[in-house]
């Protein structure tokens, strides 16, 4: 029954030939998809699985607000086959990086928000309506972006188009389940008079998809600290609107939140902007789960 040495050697050589022929070819065919923000890493990784590489063009610890491109970013961007961008805020630096590579008109850009219906920043601001770019801190707008990214990746890589679309559907189902779980916890508070303010204008899409409204936003513009006069006005607005809960941003504006808390007596909770920490496939779901749990806790405690 033992295999003859010649036959065995032939089999091994044949297997090696097949592997050397198929291996590098497949590796070469793998697209390198660049991303700018953490949620897009999760979105793209869940769409492409192991059929493409997902390449963050800036380090995980970089703060997207006011980031200055580094030479390493340009090196990374040189090897990309496509780049997924938010395009309406937070990743303005990506366009400088692409320009520096000399590939401005050659690198396919995937505009994640192309089909998303944008909404204005919440809170009462008179007649002024300012576009809110935080479509990535939401499950419903995330689903729309996931489908858009999958469609564009399918155009760039048609042989994997159906695979990407199936993965987009599975991933979207999980994200909808996340939201549905929280909605179950909201049910007992249906009639509650819950009035909330946010430090940062980052949560309008999230509040909208939960059927909730924001009464005031502290920052007058994204990433811009209010002047003393604007802060005094906001404190008055919070008191007048009988706001009891303030949602602060996890990584900035802590002192400002403390000031507002001291002046108004609101209870402060922190939400994640989903733009910090390591790039992982689960990052978006984990951070959004924490955000949704924080919202549920705030509602529970407000009801007591």
């Amino acid at each position, binding site marked *: 029954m033992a295999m003859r040495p010649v036959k065995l050697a032939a089999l091994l050589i044949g297997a090696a030939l097949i592997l050397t022929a198929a291996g590098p070819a497949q590796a070469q065919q793998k697209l390198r998809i660049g991303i700018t923000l953490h949620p897009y890493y999760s979105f793209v990784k869940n769409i492409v699985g192991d059929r493409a590489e997902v390449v963050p063009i800036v380090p995980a610890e970089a703060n997207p607000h006011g980031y200055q491109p580094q030479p390493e970013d340009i090196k990374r961007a040189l090897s990309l086959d496509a780049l997924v961008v938010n395009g309406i805020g937070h990743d303005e630096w990506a366009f400088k990086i692409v320009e520096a590579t000399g590939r401005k008109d050659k690198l396919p850009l995937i505009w994640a928000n192309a089909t998303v219906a944008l909404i204005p920043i919440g809170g009462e601001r008179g007649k002024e*309506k300012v576009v809110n770019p935080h479509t990535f801190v939401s499950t419903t707008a995330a689903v729309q972006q996931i489908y858009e990214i999958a469609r564009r990746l399918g155009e760039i890589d048609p042989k994997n188009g159906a695979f990407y679309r199936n993965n987009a559907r599975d991933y979207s189902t999980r994200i909808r389940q996340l939201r549905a779980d929280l909605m179950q916890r909201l049910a007992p508070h249906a009639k509650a008079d819950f009035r909330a303010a946010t430090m940062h204008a980052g949560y309008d899409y999230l509040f909208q998809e939960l059927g909730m409204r924001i009464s005031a936003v502290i920052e007058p513009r994204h990433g811009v600290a209010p002047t003393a006069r604007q802060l005094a006005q906001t404190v008055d607005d919070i008191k007048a609107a009988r706001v009891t809960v303030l949602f602060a941003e996890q990584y900035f504006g802590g002192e400002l939140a403390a000031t507002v808390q001291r002046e108004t007596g609101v209870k402060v909770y922190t939400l994640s902007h989903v733009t910090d920490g390591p790039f992982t496939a689960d990052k978006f779901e984990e951070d959004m789960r924490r955000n949704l749990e924080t919202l549920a806790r705030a509602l529970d405690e407000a009801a007591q």
Partner: protein
Amino acid sequence: MTTIANTARRGERIESLVVAAAVGIVAAITLGYAFLLGTVESGPPRLLDWQVSAFFDLGPDDQAIHSALSAAAEEIGAMNYDFGDWAKPDELDRLLMPPFYKDEFFARHGSVDWRQLGAADYTQGGDTAYFGSGGLAPDQSAYLLIFRHRHIGSAYSNQTEIWVNPNAKIAAPEAYRAEFLARAGWRQVIPYSGADEVARLKGN
């Protein structure tokens, strides 16, 4: 000799004038074109009489339902592409898909009654429409999500439209042509999309 020289000089002068005029015309056209390019409008799309802006014109309940419908349209269209049928509202409810999913969002935004009015034929094309009416929230509209499903040879497209009617209790429309809907008081909702914002920020 003098006459010949004068004639030649006059000819050169005319030639210079013609060249100068041609240069002037080309420069004027170029400048005019550049001016027009520089004044191409960006920002929110211009609306026609029967259209309203999701960003500027809708109230909070209508805007929330419009956002949810936009995302749902993406998924319904993808399901149609892969499986060939059009999911019914109760299936979309089971799939936890807002605004069809009967959760707190559904309750807070008027408990709209959703129906599928028609379904485009998989091979022939046609229109698929989801009609939402009877919403109880203040100033709430009735809603219509239409997929205009068209076949061109073996290829096809799903063009999606969302319409609102200020009468939340209006009866279902009998036809979905834009002229018919506009005459019946329906208004097509035009989103301010990410693509519009990119055009405003970066030019077309």
